[in-house]
């Protein structure tokens, strides 16, 4: 069996994205390296999801260059993503995970044991037999994390994973994300919840209008923002 290739670092060099003559991302230069989570913050439409999709290799840049550990392409084997409203397959909770394991190429014989491990990891062991679509929003988000972990990812992209959750479920998801990051998985997360960024981020990237306004280690970003946009964003002003 071929040894999995590394994806890190993921380097964005002057990346731009156009969609139907509209510039949605401009001159993005960003280095995603192993270590603490990188959190993308910014208002709606600032390009956070586009950056995640580019990092996943799901979207090709219109300009600039992206490399995964020096390669211009990724097969995505060790990249996983959880969206804001993950779609649950019309199967049981358990079958959703075994499906993801199958898609990740895990041998048939190992899938059940691995699925049990993953469900335990996200606290859904007792929901294994339930139809996934009947889980609560928070449970669905945790199941989506379990499915993402089925790929044994080196990089996990999270697109506002708690945007529609209450505080209790947000806390549960954040604890899982923290544990995932602590296990060595590089977490790249988009959020416009500043409090969440404070709690989880190792590095912060502020996007406004499709451009990076500021990127810095989290303590530095929150203690002394270098740009007026970052300062305004932290004050809670409307940044457009």
């Amino acid at each position, binding site marked *: 069996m071929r040894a999995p290739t590394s994806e890190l670092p993921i380097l964005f060099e002057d990346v731009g994205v156009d969609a139907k003559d509209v510039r949605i991302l401009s001159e993005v230069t960003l280095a995603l390296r192993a270590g603490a989570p990188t959190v993308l913050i910014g208002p709606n439409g600032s390009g956070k999801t586009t950056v995640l999709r580019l990092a996943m290799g*799901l979207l090709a840049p219109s300009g600039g260059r992206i490399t995964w550990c020096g390669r211009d392409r990724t097969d995505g084997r060790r990249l996983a*993503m959880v*969206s804001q409203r993950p*779609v*649950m397959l*019309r199967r049981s909770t358990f079958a959703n995970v075994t*499906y993801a394991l199958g898609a990740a190429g895990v041998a048939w014989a190992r899938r059940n044991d691995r699925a049990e491990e993953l469900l335990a990891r996200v606290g859904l062991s007792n929901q294994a037999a339930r*139809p996934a*679509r009947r889980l609560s929003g928070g449970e669905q988000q945790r199941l989506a994390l379990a*499915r993402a972990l089925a790929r044994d990812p080196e990089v996990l992209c999270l697109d506002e994973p708690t945007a529609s959750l209450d505080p209790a479920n947000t806390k549960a998801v954040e604890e899982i994300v923290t544990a995932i990051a602590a296990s060595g998985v590089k977490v790249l997360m988009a959020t416009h919840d500043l409090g969440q960024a404070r709690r989880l981020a190792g590095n912060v990237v502020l996007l406004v209008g499709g451009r990076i306004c500021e990127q810095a280690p989290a303590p530095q970003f929150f203690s002394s923002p270098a740009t007026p946009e970052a300062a305004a964003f932290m004050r809670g002003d409307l940044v457009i």
Partner: protein
Amino acid sequence: MAQDPTALALVLGGDATLYAIVQLSLMVSLAATALAALVGLPLGAYIALVQFPGRPFVIVVMNAFMGLPPVVVGLAVYLLLSRSGPLGFLGILFTPRAMIIAQALLVMPIIAALTRQTIEDLWVEYRDELTAMRVGPFARILTLIWDARFSLVTALLAGFGRAAAEVGTVMIVGGNIDGFTRTMTTAIALETSKGDLALAMGLGIVLIALIIVVNAAAWGIRRVGELRAG
């Protein structure tokens, strides 16, 4: 309606002629639906998921073929299977096999068109998730067919209903041979023209009952599926 009691007596009394016709009709229509599903389900899913030149034209033609005139299909199959036709060497004209093929051709566009619509709708929902999971094209088709299975029951049911209720195709390629290729619908047409309304009505009762039972079963399957799979 002086014939009614006799028709009911035939049905309730287990008349051998009547039930032989019912058995053959069921066998032909179920086999035709299964054959059509074998082609129509993956074809519909493929067209739903894969972009290719002329796709809109294919979709329009497929939708139009849902309303194919049965006699035209019967005629085409007759010409193919007749002794001088390209498939005449098979020697299956005026047999149940020919009837199955003809009905399958009639039903396949219905199953394919309804499958395409169902799978296309589900794909809109699943696209980002399956793309992020790097699920390949073939596995996508299988996944979507499986996850839409309870909705696709409706497509199969529509196909079966069309097969069970049609007369023209099986009349042309089956020949309505007594005890061999006579189905419920061809028998009803024949017995009515002969004035034997009892058998015709008896078969009509069975045909309607059958359609109700199949619909009820499909509804039940769908309901159980929704409860179990969400």
